C-alpha cells in the first residue's frame, strides 16, 4: 500500500459521490408531485406535524441508556457462550464489570434519571 493507492481511493470515493448525486438530480423525474402524492406516507394518515420538529431532550437519556445496555449485552453474549472454558479470573473480571454497570444504574435510578416527565 503506498500513497498513490490511497489518493486514488479518495478520488474514487469523491468522484462516485459526485456522479451518483448529480445523476439522480439530472436523470430523475423533475416534476414535483402535488397534493396527497407529495406528502410523506405515514401509515396511511396525513402527517400531523413536520418531521423535522424538536424532540424532547429526555429521549436522548433513554437512547444513551439503551446503548449502554446494548453494549453490555454484546459483551455478555460471548461470555455466556464460552462459560465452560473461562478461568476464574475472567469470571471475576466480568462480574466486576457487571457490578459496576449495576451500581451505575442504581445511582441513575436514585437520581431520577429514569423518570420520564
Amino acid at each position, binding site marked *: *500500500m503506498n*500513497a498513490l493507492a*490511497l489518493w486514488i481511493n479518495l478520488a474514487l470515493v469523491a468522484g462516485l459521490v459526485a456522479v451518483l448525486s448529480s445523476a439522480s438530480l439530472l436523470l430523475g423525474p423533475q416534476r414535483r408531485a402535488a397534493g396527497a402524492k407529495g406528502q410523506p406516507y405515514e401509515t396511511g394518515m396525513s402527517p400531523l406535524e413536520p418531521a423535522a420538529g424538536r424532540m424532547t431532550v429526555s429521549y436522548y437519556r433513554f437512547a444513551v441508556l439503551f446503548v449502554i445496555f446494548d453494549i453490555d449485552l454484546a459483551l455478555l453474549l460471548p461470555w455466556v457462550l464460552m462459560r465452560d472454558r473461562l478461568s476464574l479470573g475472567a469470571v471475576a473480571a466480568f462480574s466486576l464489570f457487571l457490578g459496576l454497570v449495576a*451500581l451505575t444504574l*442504581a*445511582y441513575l435510578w436514585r*437520581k431520577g434519571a429514569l423518570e420520564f416527565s
Partner: protein
Amino acid sequence: MTSLLVLTAGLLWLVAMGLAGRSGKAQSARAVAVFAILLATLCLAPTGEAADGLLRQDGFSACWQLIFLLAALPLAMLMPMEDESSAILLLGSLAGMSLLASANHLILLFIGLESMSLPGYLLVYRLNRGRDSLEAAIKYFFMGSAAAALYLFGASLYYGATGSLALAPAGPSSFRLEFSLALMAVAALLKIGAVPLHFWLPDVYEASAPELAGFFSTAFKAAGILFLLRLLQLPPVLSEGMQLALPWISAVTMTVGNFLALRQSSLARLLAYSSIAHVGYLLLGVWAWTRDGRPLPGSILLYLAAYLFMSTGAFAALRLSGLKRWEQLRGYGARSPWLAGFMALMLLSLASIPPTGGFLAKFFIFWDALRAQGAGWVWVAAFNSLVGIGYYFSWIKAMAFDPADEQAAPPAPKLSLRQQGLLWGCAVPTLFLGVWPGVHTWLTALLGAAR
C-alpha cells in the same frame, strides 16, 4: 497504577454516598474528593508494565499524573457543590487523565481521553449554570467530538498500517502510517487549543467557573501535551513531518494568543488567550525536543509545572476576588492589597519576569530551542514575550496605580484559612521554581525513572 485504583475507589465511594442519600452530602463529598486526590498523590510511582502490557506506568506517567492531581486539588477545594455529583465528575475526569498517562495502547488512550473530557464538558455547565456556560459546554463538546473523530480515524489507519494498536515503535514508514499519526496529532493539538483550533477555548474559559478554567488550562493542556509527546515518540517518521510544522504552529499560536489577549476586557478571556500563547511556547519546546533526538523532556515538564502553579493561582485569585471585567481592576490594590499582591506575583510569573517559575521555565525552553538551531524561532518567541508583558503589566498597573472606582469592584473578600493556604500553595512554588535552576536536572531525572 495504585493511584488510578485510589481514584476509582473514591469515585465508587461517592456513588455509594449518592445511593445512600444522607443529608449534608456536599461537605462530605468534598472531603472524600480531596482525600482521594491526596491519597492518589502519595501512591504515585513508576511501577512498570501492567495488564499484559496494556498499561505502562513509567516516569512520564508518574510526573504527569502528579501535575493532574495537583491541578485538581484547588478545584476540589474551591468548586461549589450541591451534592456529590460534581465531585464524581471531577474524580472521573482525573481517573481518565491517569489512564491516559499510563496507557500503552491506542484504545486505552482513547478511553482515557474521552473519560477525561466528557465530565469536563458537564462541569462547565454544572459549576456555573447559565445560558453562556450551556453554550460553551456544547461548543466544547462538539470540538471534543471532532478531536475524537480525528483520533479514531487516525487510530484505524494506524491499525491498517501496522496491524497493531500497541503504542510501540511501528514498522517501516509508509504514507498511511504518517497520515494516521498526523491525524492523531491534530486531535492532540485540538485538545491543547493550538491556533487555528483554539476557537472554543476563550468561550469555555470565560463561561465556566474560574477555578474550572484553571483546571482546564493546566491539567487538560498537560494531558494534551503528553498525548502529543507519546505520539511523537512512536516512529521517527512523524517527527520529520512535525519538525517542519511545529515551529510554524507554535509561532502562529503564540502570536495570535498574545495579540488577541491585548484587546480583551474580560479577565477570564484575557487569561484564556494568555494560555493559548503559553501553548505556543510549549510547542516550541516540543519542537526542540523532537529536533534534539527526543531525550527526556525536562524543559517541557518544568514549563508545565511552573504554568500549573501560576495559572491555577491566577484563576483562583479571579474566583476568590470575584473580579470579572477590566474596569473593576482599578484601584483594587488599595482595596484588597494581599489578594492584589498575589495576583501581581502570578502575572509576573506569567510574563516570565525573574525570580519566578515562569522565567526559569521559559529560559529552559528557549535554551533547548537555541541548541536545536532554532534561533529565529526564539526571536519570535522573545518578541511575543514582550507583547505579553504589555497586557500583564497593564493589569498590574490598573490594580496598583489607577484611581479606584467605588461602584465597579466587588467588595474585598474575607478569605478563610483554607483559601489562604491555597494561595500560599501557589505563591511559594512559583517563587521556588524561579530561584532553583537545579529543578530542571531534578525533573529530568524524575522522568527517567523506571524506563
